[in-house]
């Protein structure tokens, strides 16, 4: 296992975890806007599957870099492929961060961060668990009351909004 591979793997993992600069693709043809608004000026038309670097998010929009330009794209117009490589999938070597991120790689070689998860962690653990009522009491001692939650919301300027949505739309 070369240091180069390890370094690439590092970058892949870190970019996944930190999410400071997410790698994504356009999931459909879309427009890059100057600002995060539908009626803002169009900076570029992006074809489907254009790689973009996500710099930030704002509401339904993502600030992205693509083709030397930066602007805003609808988040729903992006797709996010899996990014983490397994150590066994390095047959061809990871010659660049791009390949480490899974670009243009066969699906079978895409990594699988999430192979165990709930089942691996909890199914056996839960079956064998002895109940811990003391931990439950501890957990319950951290509950927030209404007044505390309201103050907490005000501190961040979170204001309750009345939004009516037809029942059939919610089902």
């Amino acid at each position, binding site marked *: 296992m070369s240091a180069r591979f390890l*370094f690439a*793997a*590092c970058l892949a993992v*870190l970019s996944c975890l930190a*999410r400071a600069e*997410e790698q*994504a693709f356009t999931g459909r043809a879309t427009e890059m806007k100057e600002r995060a608004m539908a009626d803002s000026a169009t900076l570029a038309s992006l074809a489907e599957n254009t790689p973009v670097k996500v710099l930030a*998010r*704002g*509401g*339904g929009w993502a600030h992205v870099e693509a083709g030397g330009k930066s602007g805003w794209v609808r988040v*729903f117009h992006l797709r*996010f*492929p*899996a*990014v*983490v490589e*397994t*150590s066994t999938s390095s047959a061809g070597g990871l010659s660049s961060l791009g390949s480490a991120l899974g670009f243009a790689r066969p699906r079978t070689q*895409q*990594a*699988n*961060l*999430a*192979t*165990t*998860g*709930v*089942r*691996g*962690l*909890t*199914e056996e*653990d*839960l079956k064998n*668990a*002895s*109940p*811990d*009522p003391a*931990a*439950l009491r501890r*957990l319950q001692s*951290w*509950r*927030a009351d*209404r007044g505390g*939650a*309201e103050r907490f*919301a005000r501190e*961040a*300027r*979170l*204001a*309750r*909004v009345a*939004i009516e949505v037809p029942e059939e*739309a*919610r*089902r």
Partner: protein
Amino acid sequence: MRLTALACAALLAASLPAAAQLDFGRLINRAIDSGKKLHEANREYTPEQEIALGEGIAAGFLGAAPLDPDQDLQRYVNRVGRWLAMNSARPDLPWTFGVIDTQTINAFAMPGGTVLITRGLLDRLASESELAGALAHEIAHVVKRHQLSAIQSAAGTSALTDIGKDIASDAIDRRGGDVLGLKKWGADAGLEMLKNGVFLRPLDRSMEYEADRLGVLIAARSGYDPYGLVAVLQMLAQAKGDTSGISVFNTHPAPADRLAQLEGFMNANLDRYASQPQVEARFRRAISARR
């Protein structure tokens, strides 16, 4: 040296067990005696029974997954969760939120208003609005009593254990006014539901989609940027990878499917609330204090 440390961190991270799914509450594939089927299908759990059952499940769960020791973080998550729940259709449940110390990426809703989120998921979030999106999805499961529905819909599908019989029996009703008896029943029934090994039984796909829609609505009504859940699902799509062979993913809607389901609903109803706060700074403070 630094490279080696980074490499080790990367390998460690890559080897950690992590399930990128946000669907929970898949408690309970409790089989109900066919003779009791009709009774059970029509049963209305009282809020007290629902809470007792949820506490029983939670106590068992905490026996397997330790709480994160950072009390400030626990209180922070409780404030976010309580504020969201206050803007749901069941504001008066004894809402309780907790962070469990595991790298698995997930969150879990118990009947009656106990919600657990893993440190693995929390560590991958970028703002309070994303945390709100995840918690609101769980709150929606509780509001809609999805876990209890799963019990009821499982009626008659397999053999019944003693506890199952107890659940289906009128004994619970008699204990309704007996606090100690109710707690004992909840503890026994909740633990049985964990030990039964059916915890991974997924909720119905339509319930997950409903929890996503109601979740973003609750987040928006609470003043958050409702696109937090969208960011979480896109993160999960990345973390998940191509896991088509893994049953836990096979039995749940893929993040991409959930996003596709959400898009029309959000465009039609929530786009105008997209500029509400994401609350990144407070989230970073709460998280970094623990790291």
